């Protein structure tokens, strides 16, 4: 078992579906941080079999909407003085702004430069998001 030091202060993003950690790393722009960031892939998990974990050695503001959009089952643990002070549960956000882009070539977002790419939650049960301009469904990979 790989050993990564436990945090004294920072954020642990846990219960990430195995293989999704790099996607989250990019969405949250963690490459811009100066502090230590550990990505643990394929860790053993009772609940999930295998999971990914991201440990960030600083208390940063995490965009919970982005995380909830990627996977609402992820948990975010805030660590301070070596102990867990907060466990944040996620949910599918009502809308996501400039996280994903509309791929419909007939959509106005394909030509209009300055507008934000906004997707709204259309079906919470199925996790369907639609572009607010053309209503095309976002296809998850």
């Amino acid at each position: 078992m790989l050993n990564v030091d436990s945090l004294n202060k920072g954020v642990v993003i846990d219960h990430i579906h195995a293989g999704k950690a790099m996607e989250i790393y990019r969405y949250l722009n963690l490459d811009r941080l100066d502090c230590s960031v550990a990505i643990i892939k394929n860790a053993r998990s009772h609940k999930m079999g295998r999971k990914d974990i991201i440990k960030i050695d600083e208390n940063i503001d995490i965009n919970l909407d982005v995380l909830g959009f990627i996977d609402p089952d992820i948990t975010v643990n805030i660590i301070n003085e070596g102990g867990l002070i907060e466990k944040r549960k996620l949910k599918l956000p009502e809308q996501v702004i400039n996280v994903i882009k509309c791929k419909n070539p007939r959509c106005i977002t394909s030509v209009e430069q300055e507008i934000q790419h906004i997707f709204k939650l259309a079906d919470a049960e199925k996790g369907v998001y639609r572009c607010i301009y053309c209503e095309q469904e976002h296809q998850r990979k």
Partner: protein
Amino acid sequence: MKHLIDPLDLSVEEIAELLDVASDIEKNPQKYAEVCRGKKLATLFYEPSTRTRLSFEAAMLNLGGSILGFSSADSSSASKGESVADTIRVVSCYADICAMRHPKEGAPKVASAYAGIPVINAGDGGHQHPTQTLTDLLTIRSLKGRLDHLTIGLCGDLKFGRTVHSLIKSLARYSDIRFVLISPEELRVPDYIREEVLRAKNIPFVEVERMEEVLPELDILYMTRVQRERFFNEEDYVRLKDSYILDRQKLSLASKEMFILHPLPRVNEISTEVDNDPRAAYFKQAQYGVYVRMALILKLLGLEVD
């Protein structure tokens, strides 16, 4: 600031009020002849649509207002690369209200975010055409006296026809509506209409390939054009095309109380021999289109007539 981008932007109550005004305009046009004196409607048509543009312009002129605008992207600043957001900010300085037609889906929604004046979506690509839907609703209500307790037949290209999708979504909000969807297998309504609208709201519907078998049960027959290029092979087109042409013989199967609607332009899907039948309502529908656009302009400008 109120805009009309999607037919569902208006509640059932707001639609009822709007249609009431449109019906009053039909009965008392002179009452409304000067209401928009001094007001200007900008028609921003990035692609040609003579019928819709003339309908909007006629509506504003009937209200005593003036019109300005362009009728293709070539004759507008879009040809120089100006964004929709910039164009609408400028037009907001020139006009009191605007109707926008654009080939890209969602363009009028973008315009509404930057506009200082009400924006009406006059058709955005294959997406929405809310004033056509309002026209259809006014026509049905005027001819049948109601928008509930109806069996609505929709015939032709139900897959790509945006007017059909908008009409289904709008009528799905009224009680006791039943849909009869008449199309070739290849041109059936998209899954999201079947699942997210019809099945999700428990609205009864049937899908059939031939109109003859269902004509007697319809209150409204909404015809659309079946385009040859939509078919995957010539054999299917030849096999099915005549089933989607309404002629006098087929019409003899329908109820005397049924009405035929069509968003126009018609090509050959309604035989001209049907035009003189009292049930043919498609040219009257174009007239209702002017009344409902007049009512909409008044509503969005916040103008009331006693």
